[in-house]
């Protein structure tokens, strides 16, 4: 068993070494699978369900890219990564793209040499506290013990916030969300802080969600989005425009229900036609098929549908669109035009 695994790996290694010069797109097409890095489990964003299927908001982005490139939304290998392993996994080529609620920051973009292709969720760090504590603002938290889920920018934001307001606190860094929850519910910390979306997702799983409040302050900007390696702009373009296609589809009213009918033949709206490939050569420019965007949208619907299915108000997580509404509805979700 062992020798042949190693042997197989060596052969693959020697074969792949020749192909390394090719772009990520060719690699993915040759492999027939997209390797997509996700979290090890955050309900609503990326988590395996009881049957072992990955479900979630970030997962939908991976599936859309796989559909655009390979025509099949299931041709994805989900690679669970931790806060520690995600960047190396991407840099060393273990994964083709990372969709793991990762905050877009300058140092990650410039120093770590990654390209953030866009923002699929505008988040911010918030606090959750038990109602009986009677705290309404994070500025009342002087001397409190704070549970932090490590592995993201959370620790830094927290330190900055408390330093700026000149109040003291005791951080308790915790590895996984489940353990942080156990600490918080047992009263080992007064408040739990992570991205507001994560807080909502966590609260949704509590026995008595109404006993806990999210404090009003959002102490940071957390634009979360998929990212790829620096230096392969063609691949970066594909991921960027797949995300934009989902967003534009919502803006133009293209949904998973009507996409078959709309893409059958060119309709009255030229932008929809260009998006769905019934007019123009946008797919060809990207090096993909003409129906790439249609395939991407058909997997799990447009941006709004993905949001509603995974984290929207009808789900236990119950996040409102807020900043993540379309720009036409007063939100920040905005896609450059398809032309």
């Amino acid at each position, binding site marked *: 068993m062992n020798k042949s695994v190693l042997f197989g790996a060596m052969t693959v290694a020697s074969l792949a070494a020749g192909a390394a010069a090719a772009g990520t797109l060719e690699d993915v097409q040759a492999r027939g699978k997209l390797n997509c890095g996700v979290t090890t489990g955050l309900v609503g964003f990326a988590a395996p369900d009881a049957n072992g299927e990955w479900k979630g908001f970030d997962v939908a982005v991976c599936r859309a890219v796989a559909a655009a490139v390979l025509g099949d939304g299931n041709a994805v290998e989900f690679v669970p990564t931790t*806060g520690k392993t995600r960047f190396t996994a991407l840099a060393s080529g273990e994964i083709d793209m990372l969709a793991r609620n990762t905050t877009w920051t300058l140092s990650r973009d410039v120093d770590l040499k990654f390209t953030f292709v866009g923002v699929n969720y505008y988040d911010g760090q918030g606090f959750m506290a038990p109602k009986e504590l009677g705290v309404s603002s994070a500025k009342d938290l002087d001397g*409190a*013990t704070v549970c932090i889920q*490590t592995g993201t920018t959370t620790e830094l934001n*927290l*330190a*900055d916030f408390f330093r700026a307001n000149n109040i003291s606190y005791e951080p*308790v*860094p915790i590895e996984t969300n489940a353990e942080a929850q156990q600490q918080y519910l047992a009263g*080992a910390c007064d408040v739990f802080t992570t991205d507001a979306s994560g807080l909502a997702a966590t609260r949704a799983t509590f026995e008595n969600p109404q006993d806990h409040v999210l404090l009003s302050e959002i102490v940071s900007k957390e634009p979360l989005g998929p990212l790829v390696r620096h230096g392969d702009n063609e691949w970066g373009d594909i991921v960027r425009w797949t995300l934009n296609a989902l967003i534009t589809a919502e803006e133009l009213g293209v949904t998973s229900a009507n996409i078959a009918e709309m893409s059958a033949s060119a309709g009255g709206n030229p932008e929809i036609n260009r998006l769905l490939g019934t007019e123009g050569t946008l797919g060809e420019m990207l090096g993909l098929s003409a129906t790439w965007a249609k395939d991407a949208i058909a997997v799990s619907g447009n941006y709004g549908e993905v949001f509603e299915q995974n984290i929207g108000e009808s789900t236990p997580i119950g996040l409102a669109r807020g900043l993540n509404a379309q720009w036409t509805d007063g939100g920040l979700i905005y896609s450059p035009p398809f032309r």
Partner: protein
Amino acid sequence: MTIITDPPKGSFRLSMLLNDSRYRSLTLQAIAAILLALAIFYLANNVVTNLQRLGLNIDFSFLGAPAGYDINQRLIEYTSQSTNLKAAFVGILNTLLVAFLACIMATIFGVFAGVLRLSNNWLVSKLMSIYVEIFRNIPVLIWILIIYGIMTVVMPAPRAFRGEDAEAAMFLGISAFTNRGVYIPGPEFSRIFGEMGILSAGIGWLVAIAIIIGSFFGARTVTRRATRIQEATGVRPATLVTNLAIWFLPLIAFFIITGLTFEIPELKGFNFKGGIKIGAPLIAIWFALSIYTGAFIAENVRAGIQAVSKGQTEAAGALGIRPNRIMSLVVLPQALRVIIPPLISQYLNITKNSSLAILVGYADVTATLGGITLNQTGRAIECIVLLMLFYLTISLIISAVANFYNNSTKLKER
């Protein structure tokens, strides 16, 4: 009779490199050196190519940049504006602290369990073997998670102490056991050192330790003098009162002069304030490592005591030595020779296993340098290399101590 002379010069053949035992080892070493160099070159070349392709570089300057995060448990002054290097240093001290505490505690557990396992009380010895088997056969990772979980759930939260009819009460009114940690009264010097701010306690305790050391030497002088008198006259003067006075009077006087008071922790706001806090993560990892390693040490102790042949005890008895002196003069010195080497390797294991502190949120060096710093800077290679160097240094130091001990207690065979 032929006289064997040096092989004639110039008759060197290539095949001799492999067949002549004078050259064979050189040949093999040369081949090994070439293979090794090739392997290293291959790996290094891959690293360089990969890093170049990604536009990355190996750069340790991030160590000088502000860390940006806070650390809960720290032995030296540290703020979120301190450098990553200092954060790593805080982590190193925390690792050493928990390793030191766990070594002591594990030795206590291990010696107790090991001795009790040999007890002729059937129930106790069976209980101890159950303890040893259960803890030796379940991964330490699971134990750490279970013990941290038990601490969190079983101990009351600070808010349980609040209100008129609180669910929890302070122990004897001076200590609080909560799931955030244990708060005990902290000594404070109200006079002399009081005005010196944060340093006061530190200097105060240094002086106190100096006084204790002084007392130790004082007491030893008295005891030696007593022994001399005993050897000269056969009568040993009473030293108990003198010794007690030497031990305690100076210390008590020092405490009275400096106005030692104990600050009792009390619930203020979200947490207990004042006194000394021993954080829950520290207690959890400390206890988990101690009780886990204690099971291994118990086996070492048992084996060590059983290794002393029964004839030794009987021989000592035949010489008329009393039982407790047999233990201290005959059995223990021989058992220790067997116990100590594996004990030191258990200490090494504790130090290495303390890297699992990351699971309970204890800020050891794996959690600061190899955790948050690595996450925030993305400098994986640099952080992990430094981390390994640190553990390697500690291990080498401990092994050096072990070797020194082994050599000094080796049976001198003639």
